[in-house]
């Protein structure tokens, strides 16, 4: 019986140790830098901020924060994507060995012209004669796009088979007023919360500007139907037209994308005319299929 009591005491002591091995989280649950918003409520015309960035671009973290502030300031109106391009995105050495670049991001930059990073496009509309804008102009350019009338609304559903990594994306385009044959629908995949090194010049010496656990958000992974997307119609699109588009995409084997961090962005743009992005929408998360 003595042995029995000793055993129970020993186990109770071990149990006590384990009981300390838990963290109870109470509100607030969200970290202050969080940028997730509900993207489904508004029928307003939304704004697409496409950011050119690179993991060795020391001024880019500040620009990324500004972009996130826009999302917080204009809830449900701003959609972000980050294209890692230029030599600042090249994998270099051991610290910056990860390759964020995509052929699609590079192709977009080639079309619009390389600009000093950080740079961005607001709805692909020229502001003060420039399409690709430096960070100081983002605020004013973005405000110039606010309160525009939406030509169409987009509704997005994205499913992913968790076993096969096959995506099924449904996009409904509902025209509120007439459109043209230049209207193209493009679907991009982005990923959030990728923890990889990033240079941040806001960190002053003697501390290293290399932030090893920087959280990269809105990182472009691929364009499902090409960077320009698909033409919606070969002729005039009457008001009240509805297009139900469906895309299937298999995440290629060997990719390190984490499906719970993927989001889909869909947008309609005026290709070969004004090039303006007329509407954009994003999913908050993918629906898992088992």
């Amino acid at each position, binding site marked *: 019986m003595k*042995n*029995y009591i000793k055993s129970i005491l020993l186990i109770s002591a071990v*149990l006590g140790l384990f009981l300390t*091995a838990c963290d*109870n*989280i109470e509100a607030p649950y969200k970290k202050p830098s969080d940028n*997730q*918003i509900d993207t489904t409520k508004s029928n307003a015309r939304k704004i697409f901020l496409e950011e050119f960035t690179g993991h060795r671009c020391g001024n880019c973290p500040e620009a990324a924060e500004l972009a996130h502030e826009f999302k917080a300031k204009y809830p449900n109106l701003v959609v972000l994507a980050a294209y890692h391009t230029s030599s600042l995105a090249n994998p270099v050495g051991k610290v910056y060995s990860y390759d964020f670049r995509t052929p699609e991001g590079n192709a977009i930059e080639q079309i619009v012209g390389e600009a000093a990073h950080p740079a961005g496009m607001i709805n692909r509309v020229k502001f003060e004669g420039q399409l690709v804008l430096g960070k100081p102009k983002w605020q004013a350019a973005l405000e110039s796009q606010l309160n525009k009338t939406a030509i169409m609304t987009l509704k997005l559903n994205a499913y992913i088979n968790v*076993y096969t990594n096959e995506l099924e994306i449904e996009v409904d385009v509902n025209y509120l007023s007439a459109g043209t044959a230049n209207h193209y629908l493009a679907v991009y995949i982005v990923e959030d919360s990728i923890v990889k090194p990033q240079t941040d010049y806001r960190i002053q010496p003697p501390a290293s500007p290399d932030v090893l656990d920087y959280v990269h958000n809105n990182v472009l992974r691929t364009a499902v139907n090409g960077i320009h997307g698909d033409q919606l119609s070969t002729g005039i699109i009457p008001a009240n037209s509805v297009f139900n588009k469906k895309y299937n995409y298999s995440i290629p084997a060997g990719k390190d994308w984490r499906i719970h961090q993927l989001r889909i962005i869909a947008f309609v743009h005026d290709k070969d005319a004004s090039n303006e992005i007329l509407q954009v929408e994003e999913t908050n998360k993918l629906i*898992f299929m088992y």
Partner: protein
Amino acid sequence: MYKFTIIFLCLISVISPCMLEAQDILGGKLSGNFQLDAQYYQKDTLIGAGDVSEKMLSNGFLNINYTAGNFSAGLRYEEYLNPLLGIDTRYRGTGIGYRFASFNSEIIEVTVGNFYEQFGSGMIFRAYEDRALGFDNSVDGLRFKLHPIKGVDITGLIGNQRNFWDKGKGIVRGGSMTLNLNSLIEDFFPNDYQFLLEGSIMSRYQADNQSTFYFPENVFAESARLNISGSEFSFETEYAEKNNDPSAPNKYNFNKGRGLLANLSYFPEGLGITLNFHTIDNMDFRSDRDAVGNILNLNFIPPLTKQHIFRLATLYPYATHLVGEIGIQAEVIYTMPKEWFGDKYGANISANFSQVNSINKTTKEKDPVSGQIYTYNSEMFNFGDVLYFRDMNVEFTKKWSPEFKSILSYINLTYNKDVLENEGSGKYGMVKASIVAGEFTYQINRKNAIRAELQHIWSKQDSVLHVPNTSNGNWAFFLLEYTIAPNWFISAFDEYNYGNEYDDYKIHYLSASATYIHGTTRIAFGYGRQRGGILCVGGVCRPVPASNGFLLTISSSF
């Protein structure tokens, strides 16, 4: 190249029985087993079977175990070149997927390397493997088992879980203590009854290195189990709790997890009655909060539904919905007396009912902008509004003569396809199906037997969407198997989706196979179409794509 591979595989199959014999080495014993599954794929656009670039895919493994006195060690070499369709492609490659060394003495057993383990009924921890599913969540680390006194067993472990050829990010550590009260306190309990108490704890550490939420880095779970058994009954109950564990499967909510299960069996002579109940709220527990699918699962709660063996009933299998469900199952098995039939065989009849529903949840805290639910209240002991699954079935087994026996079965299923396969997103609707199945075996003589199966399913789904697919409507199934004991089994079957809503998909899935068994070696060769669907083994499921082609399986042990 693939022709060469097939010839090579055939050669292995011929020589393997000679190679694989038990061996005594250095005073110890060497044992093991081997299996190879290879499939040669053909494109078949009608059933949705795409082109396979490699033409042939295969999974294989060889387990080798060595035991000498108190010491044992083993390893498993695995080959996935490339993985069979339906097996996760992240297994691609070859290597040692499992290795361990262990010693045991009278009071302690220590294992280092990979190991499988289960605490209680698995509500907070179960590490196991199922090669048919491509599932392996073994722990790589250290485990000890203590037997300090008679009636007390203590297990402790720490490690990382296997994640294909890598390891999960989380560190898992836990322990369990089992008290056999009859042994521990002799003469206190009646000898006719066995009393078992078990307490288990499990904890996971995973760093919080993302920017969205304040994630708990340490998540703790505990459970308590009581088992009482006698000569004609057994009762088992287990309650488990898990701390806040926001994860991808639970949509990053911060609620605690809870679960309760109870099983009662009464089995006097000629009768068996079983009642099962469980209620689960937010009990998906993994060693990586971001994992989804059959990856890095720490726990396992078996489904409260009958695991049907008739093939058409497997069109709609059920797997436990760990994020929340409440279910009940009742089964009665009765051996009908011989006098009722006026023969010397009697018969068995079984009736089974199971139903699983949602549990109702009301939001407590949520994000005002995104609508993300952080915490909620749940009615854990009330059947919720949404029906997930219902199964009513009856089975009659009768031997009619020394040569002839039969099994007749009726199954009625309701299957919420949207919830079970699609996170509740309205896409397929509710499936209502009735199945009639019969199995008839005729023993021609001592060595030869013939077996036939006839099955039919009437199936409807009430979805407003009607997307062409290869599995809806009525099916018929016919199987014929000829056995030449003890070596040969030859079978052929046809599944025909004659009631598919779309004429193009009214497809015959014809298949045939021959199996040769010699000692511990089994060689099977088949050809045919395999329908796509969900394959479940013991309540764990994975989707299997449709395929067409040759199949070769070789297995042996020594």
